[in-house]
Each structure stands twice: as C-alpha cells, then as structure tokens.
C-alpha cells in the first residue's frame, strides 16, 4: 500500500511539473511584445528585457519562475487590475470560489445520495420517476442556465435573494449559485447511487442475507449501502472537476469574485493577461491533478481490489 501511494503521488507531481513547464514555455514563446513599443525606445526595451530575465535560457527562466511560485509569488498581472500582484488577487478569489464550490459539492452529494437511495428503495414508484427526471434535467441543462432561471425568478421577479453576489450578505447570496452548480452533481450522484443500489439489491449475497433472516434497515445499511457507496467516490472526482469549469460562467453571471471570473477576465477581454493565464493554468492543473490523486488514494483505501490490480499496470 505504501508503495502504491508513493508511486501515485510521484506520478502526480511529475505530471504537474511537465504541464507547468509546457504552459510556461507556451506562454513565453507566444508572439508579441509585453512592452509598449511606441512609448519606449529599443534600448529601453532591451534593458527591460535584460532586467526581467527574458533573454535567459528558457530553463533558467522556468527555474526562476518556479522558485517564486513555490513562495506563492506569481508575479504581476500584465493588464488586469493595473498590474497588482497576482498573489493577493488570487488568494481572495480562491477563497470565494472554494466556499461556493464547497457548498455546491456538499449539497449536491448529500441530496443526490438521499435521492438515489430513496429512489432505489421505491423502485418504479413516484420517487424513482422523480429521481430520473432530476437526473435527466441535470444532464441536459447547463448550470448557468439554471442560474439564469433562478436569478430571473427569485432575484428579479421577486426580490427574495440578491441579484448579484454580495459578500456582506454572504448566506443569501450563496444560495442561487451553489444550488445551480450543485444540480449536475446531484443528478449524476442520484442516478449512479440508484443504479448501484438496485444492482446490489438484486445480487446473490443480499438474497443470502435475506434468507438468513435479515431485513429492513439493517440489511440496507449493512450490506447494500456500504457496497453501493464505494463506487460513488469515483464519480465524485470528475464532478468536482466539472464544477471548476461550470463555476466559470456561474461566477461571471453572478458577479462572484472567484478564480473562474478571473479566468474569464484574463482571456475574454481586449488584451489577454498572460501572467494570469499562466498562474491560473498552473492552479487549475494542480487542483485537477490533486483531486484525481485524492480520489484514487481514497478509493484504494476503500476497495482493496484496486490496489492489487494496479500492480498489473492497467486498471
């Protein structure tokens, strides 16, 4: 087990390093000039390039950049926020995104699990149909469409909730974005849990437990639920990642100062902010790889079969 964990962490770190290097190189080799050539003389530009270390070997530049990144310093923005240090902006944005994303994932997982379990216990009855309707809706309609719908009905038609995110009214203003973002998670988890539960309830070992005289909630919690929940962990990882992407538009629409909005601002404006693109690219990749890693490790802990088969190379 130790060897497995170690190997898995090592590959994650190496992958992240390679990706960071590729991103860095791509952003550095891009055509164009970071200095306003009409206001600076050629000598001044050359001097500035020298000062910023842009004439160095790409590996040296990367090394220097990574040294700063390790300290949490991503440099300064080139066009956003008048070149304020990225670190402070990023810190605030991350906190906002994590809060809302965290609520969304908790809400989605919890409601999804309950819905899935209830649907499986009431197969082909009302709750089951309701569960499939929710899961179909969640798959067909993007999170931002839900957001627009909620915003229009609950913040514009009736002013129950704030129309834009307001950090002074944190609780009220997280309801709309987190509910709309949780819907996809909810629907996927509900459908997955239901199918797993149904499959296990039809399995031979549940039949055996029943024939031994076990029934009701004891049977469900001991034999069905426990086995049904393990695979749910695997779907959580891609869901969290989808949430990262979905948050982009949600944050833009609802005016949340998060990393998603930062990304939109960095790429969709007139000038593209290269340093933000690079910093956010590294951050997103790190989050993505980190989530994958955690899920793999947790799954390995929960299900010993994974550990054994992973020795053979391919899962």
């Amino acid at each position, binding site marked *: 087990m130790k060897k497995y964990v170690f190997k898995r962490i090592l590959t994650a770190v190496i*992958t992240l390093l390679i990706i960071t290097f590729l991103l860095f190189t791509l952003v550095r080799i891009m*055509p164009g000039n970071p200095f306003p050539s009409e206001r600076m003389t050629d000598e001044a530009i050359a001097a500035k390039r020298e000062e910023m270390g842009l004439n160095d070997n790409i590996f040296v530049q990367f090394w220097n950049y990574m040294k700063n990144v390790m300290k949490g310093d991503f440099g300064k923005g080139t066009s956003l926020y008048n070149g304020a240090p990225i670190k402070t902006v990023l810190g605030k944005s991350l906190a906002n995104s994590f809060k809302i994303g965290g609520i969304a994932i908790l809400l989605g997982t919890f409601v999804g699990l309950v819905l899935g379990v209830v649907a499986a216990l009431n197969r082909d009855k009302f709750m089951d149909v309701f569960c499939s309707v929710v899961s179909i809706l969640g798959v067909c309609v*993007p999170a*931002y*469409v839900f957001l627009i719908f909620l915003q229009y009905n609950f913040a*514009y038609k009736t002013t129950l909730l704030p129309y834009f995110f307001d950090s002074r009214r944190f609780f009220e203003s997280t309801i709309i974005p987190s509910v709309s973002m949780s819907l996809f998670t909810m629907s996927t988890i509900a459908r997955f849990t239901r199918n797993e539960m149904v499959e296990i309830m039809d399995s031979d070992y549940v039949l055996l437990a029943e024939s031994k005289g076990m029934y009701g909630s004891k049977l469900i919690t001991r034999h069905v639920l426990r086995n049904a929940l393990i695979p749910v962990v695997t779907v959580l990882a891609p869901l969290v990642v989808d949430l*990262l992407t979905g948050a982009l538009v949600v944050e833009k629409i609802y005016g949340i100062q998060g990393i998603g909005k930062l990304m939109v601002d960095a790429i969709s404006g007139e000038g593209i902010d290269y340093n933000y693109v690079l910093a956010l690219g590294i951050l997103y990749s790190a989050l*993505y790889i980190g989530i994958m890693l955690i899920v793999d490790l947790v799954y390995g802990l929960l299900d010993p079969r994974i550990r054994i088969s992973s020795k053979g190379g391919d899962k």
Partner: protein
Amino acid sequence: MTNYTEKDFVLLGERDIQTDTNFASQPYWRGVFKRFFAKKRSVVGLIIVLVIIVLAFFGPLLSQNGYRDITSVKDPETGKEIVARGLDPQIPWLDKLLGKEADDGLFADKTFLFGTDDLGRDLWTRTWYGARVSLLIAFVTIFIDVIIGMTYGLVSGYFGGAVDSVMQRFVEIANSVPRLVIVSVLAIFMPKGIGLVIVALLITEWIGMSKIARAEMLKIKEMEYVLAGRTLGASNFSIIFKDVLPNTVGPIITQVMFSIPTAIFTEAFLSFVGVGIMLPECSVGSLIEDGFNNITTLPYQIVPPIIVLALLMLGFNFIGDGLREALAPKLDDM
C-alpha cells in the same frame, strides 16, 4: 441397405416444429438495430435529434428573414424606418384562422414564430441557424477526433510494450490538463471565434476515443483470427485497420453519441464566456448569451436556444444509452 425414396417419408406438418426465435442466430448488426429500436427511450432520442437536425437545415428556409437581416418597415405617416425590435412571437395566419382580432401594428402581416431580438432579427431563423452551426462544429470535430483517437488507441494497444507505455504516458499528461487551461492558452495564440472552439475540441476529445479503441484492441488482439492473420503474413497495418478496426466500431459509435453533446456543451460554454462564436454569426451558446443580456427586457428571447440545447443533450444521451445497451445486451434483455 434399403434405398429410401421421397415416398417413404410423410410430412407431419409444422405443428411440432418450434423455432427458437430468441436465441436464433442473426446477423450482429440486425440484432443491435432490433434491440436499439425496442427501447422507447432510444427511439425518442433518435426522433428528437432527427427533428432538430432537419429543422436546423430547413428551418431558416421557412422564414423570409435571413439570420442577420434586420426587419424594418417604413412608417407611412412619418416616413421613418421602424425596426421590429423585441417583438413577441406572432403568427398572423394562425391568428386569422382562430378568428383573433388582427393586430393593427406596423408588423401585423409579418410572421415571427419566436419573436424578434433587441436588434430586430428574426429569432426563428437565428435559433435554427445557431443550432446548425453548433451541430456542424460538433460533427466535424468529433469526426476528426474519432480518426485521431482510434488510430492512436489501436496502434498503442496493438504494439503494446514500450510503444504502448510511452504513448499512454503522453495520454496521461494530456488528460491531466483541464480543458479550461487548454482553451485559455489557445486564446493567446489564436483569434477568438469558431476556430478556437474547433481546435480546443480537437485537442481534448480524442483522448476518450483513444482509450476505448485501445481497450477494444487489447481484447481483440488475443483472438484467434488475429493470430491467423499474422500467421498468414498479414502486415501490422492491415491487421490493425482492416481486421480489428471494423470490430471496434460499436463502442466507438457509442462514445461518439456521448461526445457530441459534450462538444455542443463546450461550444455553448465558450461562446457564452465570449471566446467562441462572434457576432453576427450565432450558435446556440451565443444565442443564450444574447438572451441573458436582454433577460430583463425580453425574457422570452432566451427560451428557444435553451430548449434546443436541452433537447439536443437529451436526444444524444438517450441514443448513446440505447446504443450501449443494444451493443452489449444482458441475457435478461433478450
């Protein structure tokens, strides 16, 4: 030994002959089709998708307005051009048929099935034109991705060993880059617009295809017919592309059915964020964005593109589910 002739046999009739229809051997694809069409869901999905495709290609023709035409009428009293801004849906001939009182506005004789947008463009035409753009982007990119992904996966799986592990490390790294990051880096190098969307989809979507193709190859290459081919001296190329490839078509088609909605979704998302389709061109995503921008003044404007998007998702997902079940039937489905 007696020689039997025909006369020695008596036909007892067909009353005792029972044909096993359930397990009778039938061509593989016929079975797949039969199981696919037996499911209500997959048929519904197929119908939805076909109707939308037909409308996307012929819908704009039903209207006299082009997707970028601004409808305007000369006001007979003042002589000024009045633009049909923000009209509600109206169908004059239907109103007449139902005996409704004729609207005496300037645009009373014009048909706008979905109304018009804030600039006076016909939303019916724009919606279907946008659906056409979204569908075309999805089909083209997924088609290319299938070719790239299948080739990559089949080659990787067939050769195995060092080739496989190098190719798989590459896939692992490519798969660890979030799509968002790819898009943002592309935005540095490319102008925003349709090209950016296509390239972003090309870079990301082939990975799923290659994984499936590789898994199929690993399964199939152990079969006797591949060994037979090799013994008879078939080249690697012909084994991979002539003998194995046709047998991987099923799972790949299923994957395509799930990739197309992803592509449409991604396109909608990128256009919404503002790096996708640019005005006056439109797609489902950019139409939703337009609708969102005018939601307080023209709330119905956002409805048609959202419904089209949702139905496309639903349809392709239903078809995908149906195909997956049809290709790998469980015993109790038969």
